[in-house]
């Protein structure tokens, strides 16, 4: 499996949390410009595996790693390996968007500046490049100095991806990066992932979405209960007929996919609603399922918060357009 151009190779990597072995010996190889998807049901050790690659597991007390992880041929756990340099070149995007409590620009330039980039023009170019690469530049280019927390969840996640790309990493580890994104931004991110791969970045992405794995990845590794049970080129893995040998594998995989992305689940009745909020309030009736859809940042969560009055808790947010209904308690009847 291991080839000469493999950037990152793991040999029999095991992980224990205390006395609980969360990952059994796993050997995988990741090459430059390749996208590898890690799939499998919840709790099977995908994030655990991902975290050992850039040594984020060191932040978890009681976590022990066995085996070898070779990056450019050097063991990442050896003494001579510079932890900070390693994390700089092996970036990570988390499941929950976690921008810093800083402005959008600061979110991008903060780490490069700490790593010694000080030229203002260079930093400005970096901001623009990384935001463009993460498909969010057009949305935020006029508000670079505003807080990143004023962005929607999906926008925050793309900002986090941009922040990682600003470090010019070799490898990017993504732990379910799209679980907070709408289909359009998910598509944009998938495009970004392909672009990254084209530029020679090695991407490892954990996903619960089988279709996404099929779309973006070159190789797929399937995890089950702490074991890496199957790996291979994505096309082969997904198109293989269910032979007796791989029944568990594929069934487990598709179950998982169905649960998570709703791809094959019965679709809820989807109604596109006109946007004026007064009409929206009237359009919803009991026993009907209404889906709110729209691109990231278009106000779905905001509207939802208005309806059950969670917006009362958000500082400086008036109950737009729902004022009278709210007071008469009509919105509660939904």
């Amino acid at each position, binding site marked *: 499996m291991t080839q000469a151009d493999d950037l990152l190779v793991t040999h029999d990597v095991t992980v224990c949390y205390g006395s609980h072995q969360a990952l059994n010996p796993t050997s995988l190889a990741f090459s430059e410009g390749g996208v590898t998807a890690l799939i499998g049901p919840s709790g099977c050790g995908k994030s655990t595996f991902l975290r050992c690659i850039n040594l984020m597991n060191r932040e978890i007390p009681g976590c022990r790693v066995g085996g070898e992880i070779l990056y450019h041929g050097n063991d990442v756990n050896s003494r001579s390996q510079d932890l900070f340099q390693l994390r700089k070149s092996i970036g*990570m995007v988390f499941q*929950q968007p976690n921008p810093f409590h800083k402005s959008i620009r600061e979110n991008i330039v903060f780490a490069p500046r700490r*790593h010694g980039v000080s030229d203002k023009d260079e930093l400005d170019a970096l901001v623009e490049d990384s935001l463009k690469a993460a498909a969010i530049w057009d949305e935020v280019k006029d508000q670079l100095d505003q807080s990143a927390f004023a962005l929607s969840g999906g926008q925050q996640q793309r900002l986090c991806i941009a922040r990682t790309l600003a470090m010019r990493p070799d490898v990017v580890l993504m732990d379910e990066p799209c679980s907070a994104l709408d289909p359009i931004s998910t598509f944009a991110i998938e495009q970004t992932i392909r672009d990254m791969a084209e530029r020679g970045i090695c991407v490892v992405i954990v996903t619960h979405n089988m279709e996404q794995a099929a779309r973006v990845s070159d190789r797929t590794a399937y995890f089950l209960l702490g074991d890496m049970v199957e790996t291979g080129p994505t096309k082969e893995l997904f198109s293989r007929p269910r032979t007796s040998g791989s029944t568990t594998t594929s069934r487990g995989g598709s179950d998982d996919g169905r649960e998570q992305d709703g791809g094959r689940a019965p679709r809820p009745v989807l109604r596109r609603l006109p946007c004026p909020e007064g009409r929206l309030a009237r359009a919803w009736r009991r026993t009907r399922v209404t889906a709110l859809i729209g691109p990231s940042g278009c106000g779905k969560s905001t509207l939802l918060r208005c309806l059950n009055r969670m917006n009362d808790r958000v500082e400086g947010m008036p109950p737009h357009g729902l004022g009278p209904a709210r007071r008469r308690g009509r919105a509660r009847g939904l």
Partner: protein
Amino acid sequence: MPSAKGSATASARRADKAATVVLACIVGLICVALVAIIVGILVSGAGKLFDINFLTAKPEQFKEGGGIGPELFNSFYLLLLTLLISVPVSLGAAVFLAEYAPEGPVTTVVKTVIEALSSLPSIVVGLFGFLFFVLTLGWGFSIMSGALALTMFNIPILVRVIQQALEAVPRDQRDAGLALGLTRWETTLHILVPSAMPAIITGVILSAGRVFGEAAALIYTAGQSAPALDFLNLNLLSTSCPWNVWRPAETLAVHIWKINSEGVVPDLTAISNGTAAVLMVCILLFNVLARFAGRRLARRLTAE
């Protein structure tokens, strides 16, 4: 809405209303008590509060008409020195405990000790300061002895507050910093501390209020005499130089205690009421200003 569900909701709603009323009553009572105390103090001291002479003149030993000028200055100077020493030390200790100290028996013991120290009676701190700083080290009754005693009294509280503020910052902020190849120190200093800043500032303000009004810890350390101050005197070794840290320095709170226990001036009630009002106003002003500054600082640091 179905009726069974409706009644459950109704009772829950009633409980919610009742809880709201009860809580509002409690808060109301507390507010009334506090406002009564504050207004009482301010009204009884109102005559002196705006009397420039009272605020600037030095106290009299036997005649009436003495002021509290040196005490006012001493209070602020001691507070400033105390904060200058205790905030950096506490910040360091709290960062260590929250971010660096490995989980284990030693850390647990240290945390428990700090919690115990934060409820140490201030008179005990004062007497310790008297024995150690004043006698053993031979510093005498001095601002330095007082500031260090106050620091000892202040540090455990500040450490706890700052540590809790740091631990309340979500884990993922820390992970985000570390995953970008930043050191733990950079992550702490540039990401965690700014995020925790509002809580830290609130803690510092609350502890500063306590320090400003503290008497027991100072009676035997900073002393009970206030030498007249000459602001033109820059000789740091002279007793009348305001900045000299080796001179005795009575503060407002100690002054109140002293004139009430052994004062012989005829207008001691008026002076004590006036001093209490000044103390009160200082603490209120200080709170408002510090909160304002804290919010400005937090906004600068977080761009919110």
